[in-house]
């Protein structure tokens, strides 16, 4: 049989080639890669930031469940232990050590960092003014603030800088450590060396934290009841992974058990049971390879999701095996059912192909994945499987599986009215639905459990971390350019602050001035001899001791000839803050400068636009994410509609009869309408994921309708045909129905929609369509 050898050989070569491509495939999990290429830059940067950027390195810890003094002692003990570990770059709990790095850095580099360093500052007049101010402070109750620093810093640069860096309200302090304002929780910020997406390292960090927490609890008297709360991007990633793993393992094991028992009952042959996996397995391999070759990478979501989208290809094997009649070979069967199977497969691929045109990279990948997967799975079913089915195989249990539906079909004249009433009631319910049908709450789509989200918000409030909504955003070709431009921006923003339009802002150059500015500040510092001469003049008539300011002369001289600052010189908290504002992207740099207390967004936007700084945009993040969601929704609906239209056109081409197309489409439409009504019953809302589910209903359900629509030559074939559809549907409903039990929104929504919709498709198709042969 050269035909057989050629088919098997070609199949094996294909599998090997796919495996080779997959071995070299880059799998990405960052959500930035899933967003549309055209997504606003700020949105993309922020999405990346949350998974791999500076902020993703932070874990927030809260200690609770004991009186404040015990919590404070726990905080100190825990911080002390964590600071010993290399896995943590920094541990900030509000004590002196938390700030020592930043204070030391600001003190050592005050003459490079301070915006007040100009030539005027160090003239005799400028110094005299500074000394007069110092004298006033020394005499006041605030004198303690400058007593220690005065000999090294008569112009007060360090204090001004520290005040600027800490301008926003930090958390409250009790016993010198951070607390929530009600004193119920001691707060710590842990800066891990691993980024948030490195889940294994984050898990390791959490294990260390939990271990040290246990030790601290034993070491501090009275701390037995203290509890630890953990939050942050890495913690979320771990929770999501654990939930997903648990749900997917548990649910897919159950689904597999269900399918195996159903199919074992029907086939009564382990070999055939295993053969049934070949089409979908080959399909998945080919799909990954195709996406990898086309996009250069495969997104994790595409992989997980794509497999559910081509779950339909399991049905192909079921149709083949179940419809093989006694005394018939599998090759005969496939020749008989291939036209219907092919049309069903094409219907699905046409439906999914709408996704190819999505601006969301993730959707486009999913579209390609399902098309490639289904074509290969159908091809394997057609050309490979029949050669492998044992001689004389016949699905012995098929007859009993189809019995209940056949009974329903016998009653269908009466039951049809039920379908009609159901559709009418559904249309009524959908039109009467109160409020918007769309779920516009982004948080409901997030895989982060609601409890985690609420806890995170509580801790952010405790920490006094403002929810930054407005940013000034711009791009630059290189880092220096970005820093220079943010210095230009500082001048404009300062004038907005002076006019009361803006409460405050952060820019990267505040932490790391550009080299241009650092050199200018060095140049503004007078030489040693000149400085002493001017200082003597400035001191005239004031009661300062002549020898009190030696540290000042020494430090100015050291800065004037010393090295300049680079990103590498920053202490961890400032490096983190810089990293959150200055982000490397593609082949340039993006600056996102947070704007605080924006009273009049439109006014600030106008002022920034008119500031004469090309490329600087005012960004309202809430507005942008709303827009992104709307684009997402618009596209999802558009894809569903164009996909359905394409399906109808294909059916017209394939069946060449409007009447037959209506026979196929009517049950599908009825099923989708009833599913939508059921999902939104009681004020429920439609999520984006459900729209994907509708597309799947059409893809899977159309196969049922096509098989029902086909006339069968005899009763046996007809029964087997029904049995194969019922079997396929039972497998689908059990798999997706189990998915609906998941706590992850995307799995739950799609599982619910598809399980309900495909079952309704089966029922509607059986009842509405006049079968080819009466049972």
């Amino acid at each position, binding site marked *: 049989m050269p035909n057989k050898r050629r088919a098997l050989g070609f199949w094996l070569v294909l599998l090997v080639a796919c495996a080779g491509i997959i071995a070299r495939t880059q799998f990405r999990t960052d959500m930035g890669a899933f967003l549309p290429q055209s997504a606003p830059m700020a949105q993309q940067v922020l999405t990346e930031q949350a998974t791999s950027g500076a902020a993703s390195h932070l874990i927030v810890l809260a200690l609770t469940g004991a009186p404040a003094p015990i919590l404070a002692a726990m905080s100190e003990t825990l911080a002390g232990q964590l600071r010993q570990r290399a896995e943590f770059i920094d541990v900030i709990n509000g004590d002196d050590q938390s700030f020592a790095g930043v*204070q030391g850095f600001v003190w050592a580099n005050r003459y490079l960092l301070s915006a007040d360093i100009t030539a005027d500052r160090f003239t005799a007049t400028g110094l005299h003014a500074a000394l007069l101010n110092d004298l*006033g402070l*020394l005499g*006041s109750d605030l004198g*303690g603030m400058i007593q220690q620093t005065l*000999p090294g810093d008569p112009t007060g640069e360090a204090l001004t800088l520290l005040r600027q860096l*800490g301008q926003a309200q930090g958390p409250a302090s009790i016993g*010198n450590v951070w607390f929530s304002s009600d004193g119920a929780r001691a707060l710590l910020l842990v800066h891990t060396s691993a980024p948030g997406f490195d889940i294994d390292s984050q898990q390791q960090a959490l294990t260390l934290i939990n271990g040290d927490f246990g030790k601290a609890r034993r070491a501090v008297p009275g701390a037995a009841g203290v509890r630890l709360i953990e939050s942050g991007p890495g913690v979320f990633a771990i929770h999501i992974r654990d939930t997903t793993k648990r749900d997917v393992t548990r649910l897919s094991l159950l689904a597999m058990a269900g399918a195996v028992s159903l199919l074992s009952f029907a086939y009564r042959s382990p070999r055939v049971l295993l053969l049934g996996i070949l089409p979908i397995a080959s399909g998945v391999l080919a799909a990954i390879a195709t996406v990898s070759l086309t996009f250069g990478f495969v997104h994790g979501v595409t992989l997980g999701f794509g497999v559910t989208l081509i779950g339909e290809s399991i049905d192909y094997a079921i149709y083949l095996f179940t419809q093989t009649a006694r005394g018939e070979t599998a090759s005969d069967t496939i020749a008989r059912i291939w036209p219907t199977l092919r049309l069903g497969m094409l219907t699905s691929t046409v439906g999914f192909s709408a996704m190819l045109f999505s601006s969301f990279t993730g959707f486009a990948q999913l579209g390609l994945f399902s098309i490639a997967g289904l074509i290969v799975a159908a091809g394997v079913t057609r050309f490979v499987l029949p050669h492998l089915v044992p001689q004389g195989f016949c699905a012995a249990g098929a007859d009993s599986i189809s019995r209940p539906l056949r009974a329903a079909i016998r009653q269908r004249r009466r039951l049809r009215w039920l379908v009609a009433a159901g559709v009418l009631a559904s249309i009524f319910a959908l039109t009467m639905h109160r409020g918007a049908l769309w779920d516009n709450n982004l948080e409901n789509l997030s895989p982060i459990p609601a409890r985690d989200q609420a806890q995170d918000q509580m801790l952010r409030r405790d*920490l006094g971390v403002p929810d930054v909504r407005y940013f000034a955003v711009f791009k630059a070709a290189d880092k220096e350019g970005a820093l220079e431009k943010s210095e230009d921006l500082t001048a404009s923003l300062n004038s907005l602050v002076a006019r009361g339009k803006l409460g405050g802002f952060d820019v990267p150059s505040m932490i790391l001035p550009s080299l241009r500015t650092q050199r200018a500040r060095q140049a503004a510092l007078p030489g040693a001899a000149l400085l002493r001469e001017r200082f003597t003049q400035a001191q005239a008539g004031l009661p300062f*001791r002549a020898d009190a300011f030696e540290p000042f002369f020494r430090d100015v001289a050291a800065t004037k000839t010393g090295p300049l600052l680079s990103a590498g010189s920053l202490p961890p908290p400032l490096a983190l803050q810089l990293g959150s504002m200055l982000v490397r992207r593609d082949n340039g740099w993006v600056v996102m400068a947070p704007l605080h207390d924006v009273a009049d967004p439109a006014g600030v936007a106008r002022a920034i636009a008119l500031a004469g700084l090309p490329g600087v945009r005012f960004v309202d993040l809430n507005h942008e994410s709303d827009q992104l969601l709307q684009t997402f929704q618009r596209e999802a609906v558009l894809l569903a509609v164009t996909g359905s239209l394409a399906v109808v056109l294909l059916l017209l081409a394939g069946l060449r009869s409007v009447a037959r197309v209506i026979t196929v489409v009517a049950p599908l439409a009825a099923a989708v309408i009833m599913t939508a009504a059921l999902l939104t019953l009681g004020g429920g809302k439609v999520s984006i994921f459900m729209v994907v589910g509708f597309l799947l209903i059409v893809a899977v359900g159309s196969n049922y309708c096509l098989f029902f629509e086909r006339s069968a030559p005899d009763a046996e074939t007809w029964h087997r045909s029904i049995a194969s559809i019922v079997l396929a549907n039972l497998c689908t409903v059990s798999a997706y129905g189990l998915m609906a039990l998941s706590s992850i929104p995307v799995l739950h929504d799609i599982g619910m929609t598809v399980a309900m919709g495909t079952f309704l498709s089966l029922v509607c198709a059986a009842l509405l369509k006049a079968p080819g042969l009466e049972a």
Partner: protein
Amino acid sequence: MRIIRLLPWLCALCIASAPLALAQPATANWGLAQLMQELAQVHSASASFTERKTVQVLSTPLVASGSLSYVAPDYIRKATLLPVPENFVLDHDQITISGGPDQQTHVFSLNADPRIGGLVEGIRATLAGDLPALDHYYIVRLSGDAANWQLLLQPKNPGAARMIKWIIIRGKQNHLDGLDTASGNGDHSEMSIAEDVSDAQ
């Protein structure tokens, strides 16, 4: 990063404020307990003060003057009039400094840092006659007699001790007439107090 707070050096200045009380007849077995009991009977008082600060970097001392008031158990106000008007208020566990040379308002919580809390709580405890609290924060030594006593306080908290070496409170009966402090860096201040009004019997 909202992590930078001002260094807590300013706690040193809290020492510089202290109100007073009226004369009260001394009894035979006079001691710390008796003094505290007498001080505790003062519920409110006001006075004028003159403060002389010797600062390391200056060749001449700085002099300031103004008024003090106290309401038991935990309200102290020091209103400086000269050379620059400034208000220092301790109310319960919060210190507010306003109107000074920088014309700004600074608010500090006593709980935030044991170094601030320990120092101000000690002063407040003396005025309120709260011996347990005083013992908690300071090594307390009393010398002299009821007619002319002197209370030496040395912080127990090592952090506070680095900033304030000692505090001396001088008085006659339940009436304070002086408050001297020495800070860790060698600066010191002497305050003389002359009370106007007190509700002490």
